[in-house]
């Protein structure tokens, strides 16, 4: 019954093993209350205060902050923008992450009442503290006011958890989370789609498939 294109999202999310955006488990442990009688679990729906509920309006466009209050203060937003733009800067193809609303996307994300987002909130806010601490330790300034080279010097050590030293595993996990969120918030926008040269999501009279020349070039016909 599962739609294939839904499955691919869930699998890719589940397989990578990094916390941000990880599939909310089909059977989230917080949803279960152990039954004291026997080794039996009762699956109960726990009302999620301030969530959008099981029957939201699917047609309307939602504003950030409309469904639940946002979190970040101006200083945190500056840090969020600086890090987002370090991860996705402007180039000849598209603007930077913060220019297309990624900070608002991340703020909405970490402010959401759902278990995955609550976990990511902790990761992101702790990561912000670590990042600013590291920046002040190195250059006596908050991260947002460092030169790009200084910012990169910090991030190069945490951008790949498989290479990060043991004492930087948690910051590396934060960076992975934050990069996932930045890429998510960026590539779902019109600017992100344009950057990828995505040309779908428009009604067509007929579907012709790929050009034969392309298939020939790839050795597929």
């Amino acid at each position, binding site marked *: 019954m599962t*739609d294939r294109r839904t499955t*691919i999202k869930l699998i890719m999310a589940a397989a990578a093993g990094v916390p941000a955006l990880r599939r909310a488990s089909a059977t989230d442990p917080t*949803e279960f209350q152990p039954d004291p009688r026997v080794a039996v679990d009762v699956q109960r*729906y726990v009302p999620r205060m301030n969530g959008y509920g099981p029957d*939201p309006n*699917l047609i309307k466009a939602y504003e950030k902050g409309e469904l639940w209050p946002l979190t970040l203060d101006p200083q945190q937003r500056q840090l969020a923008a600086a890090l987002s733009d370090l991860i996705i800067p402007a180039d000849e193809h598209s603007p930077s992450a913060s220019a297309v609303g990624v900070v608002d996307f991340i703020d909405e994300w970490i402010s959401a009442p759902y278990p995955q987002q609550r976990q990511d909130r902790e990761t992101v806010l702790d990561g912000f503290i670590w990042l600013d601490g590291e920046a002040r330790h190195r250059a006596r300034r908050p991260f947002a006011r460092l030169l790009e080279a200084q910012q990169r010097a910090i991030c190069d050590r945490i951008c790949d958890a498989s290479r990060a030293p043991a004492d930087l595993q948690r910051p590396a996990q934060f960076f992975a989370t934050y990069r996932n969120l930045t890429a998510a918030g960026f*590539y779902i926008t019109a600017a992100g*789609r344009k950057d990828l040269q995505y*040309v779908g999501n428009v009604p067509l009279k007929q579907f012709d498939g790929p050009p034969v020349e392309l298939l020939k070039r790839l050795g597929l016909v």
Partner: protein
Amino acid sequence: MPFVTPSTQRGPYDVIIVGSGAGGGQTAYTLSMEGVRVLMLEAGRKYVPAHETPMFQTPNLAPLGGSVTPDKNFGFYDATVDGGWDVPGQPYVTVPDKWGGRFTWWRARMLGGRTNHWGRISLRNGPYDFKPKSRDGLGLDWPIIYDDVAPYYDKVEMLVGVYGGNESLENTPAGPGDTLLPPPTPLVSDHLFMQRAPRVGVAVLPGRRAVLTRAQDHRTVPAKLHPGNAHAQKILAAAMRKRAPCLWATDCGRGCSVGANYQSTTVHLPPALATGNLDIITHAMVYEVTMDGSGRANGVRFIDATTGRHEHARARIVVLGASACETARILLNSKSGRYPNGLANSSGLVGRYVLDTVGSSVVGQIPLLESLPPLNENAAGGLQVYAPWWLYKEQLAHQLPFPRGYHIEYGGGKQLPDPYTFYGLEWLTGGSYGKKLKEDARRYYGSFVEFDGRGAMVPNDNCYVEIDPVVKDQFGIPVLRFHWQWGDYEQRQAVHMQETFGAIVEAMGGRVQTPVVTDPVKAISSGGQMIHEVGGTVMGADARSSVTNKWSQTWDVPNLFVADGGVFPYNADKNPTLTIMALAWRMSDHILERMRRREL
């Protein structure tokens, strides 16, 4: 006024149908087209795809970019409302299996039920699938053969509109040649799969899905489906004209506002309502079939969720299409002094032999598909090509450690970017960020392919539902308790899926995202996860070993029928929805014949 309330219902009705999904929808359609007065009871709310489907909404317009949440388990834009693994106020109980796994139960409390959300993959069971025990000695045979159902597969394919190829392979039948719509043109990634999978012995066919790749033939199909019934033909022709062909955009899991794919709410219910013979009560939570003094059903009791009141609806015939496990729940809860174990349960088999589909998946990344030029690859919004099971002979010769097969659902292409598109890219990029990350995103976008194995399950005694002695739902109705245990066969089959998919990715020149899983316990999906649960009121050759006969009629109560997947004594690898509809149509024809003979 086809939508009625408990107080405005317009009885007497000939037939009550519980549930509005594939089985209930098909039954309502077939019966109402022949003049039978039908009352349908749906537990959820009214749902109108034309007005409610988010067709072209992009993820940035949705909360959290449309991500999966506990409120919307398949993402914000999934068509399902008031449904999921948890339904408010409607708990269920699960007994963990010996590895700590748990059965999970997907429900959709809405008009059209789970037909609003599904892959639309529409495969026919083959001849072996109806007689599996005769072939290899395991499980249960159906009391019918493929030829009994084939004419109904033809009809359902023509009614709902299914695209596909007309190839017939071993145990993979096709209709007579004019029942299917043309399959969509393959994508680049499809061509690669078609070229390389044969290197590991796997043949690839066009997918079969309930999506209109062109307008339905409203001039000839109605007469084929309703010979001699001009009124029904006229209604169906009008309904077919209202459905538009595929727009080649948007994901079918959102539903379809133009009616290009099958949903009960788009295909079955509109013509049934147009006959004037169908009334529908929504928010009607049915919990009991009521009996007269002579051993016949005379109606159902339900709770009107809008008022909390207990109501009773009456009819000459009762059809349960509430979904396999919910139907078993209703029967088990229909207890009385005369029926202490529940209704239609003299065999003790109500709730037994619950089955799901074996699932296992692999994602691969294919260098040949990197950095392709811009392509619109939304296509038909789902499966384009697939590989049917190919090792029947080896299995018969006991050369494989599992007796039943699986098919491969495949997908790729440059799909609408969503929050998961570039999730966890480190395994390819080494943790790039900055301009390099943007270059990597362009390079890898559209280069991923996915393989989903969907496999047969042999029924076993450890998979069943019963009524929990303590827990009740918000209405006070006792809830189901699920027991689940995959057999060794299913687990070994899942490992075979993993190894095969790994080999195909290699043949495509790619790499797997995560190593193939060879631990049988970890390779397999959890029970219920494929949302293909069937069985629980299985059909069979006699009253001792089954709940219904070959007409889906309960052995114990002659005017009580089961229209959903509950009657499946075996779950082949083929996705169950098409077979549910075919069997419901066949059952409905039988009801009509018996009504004409005044036996019902």
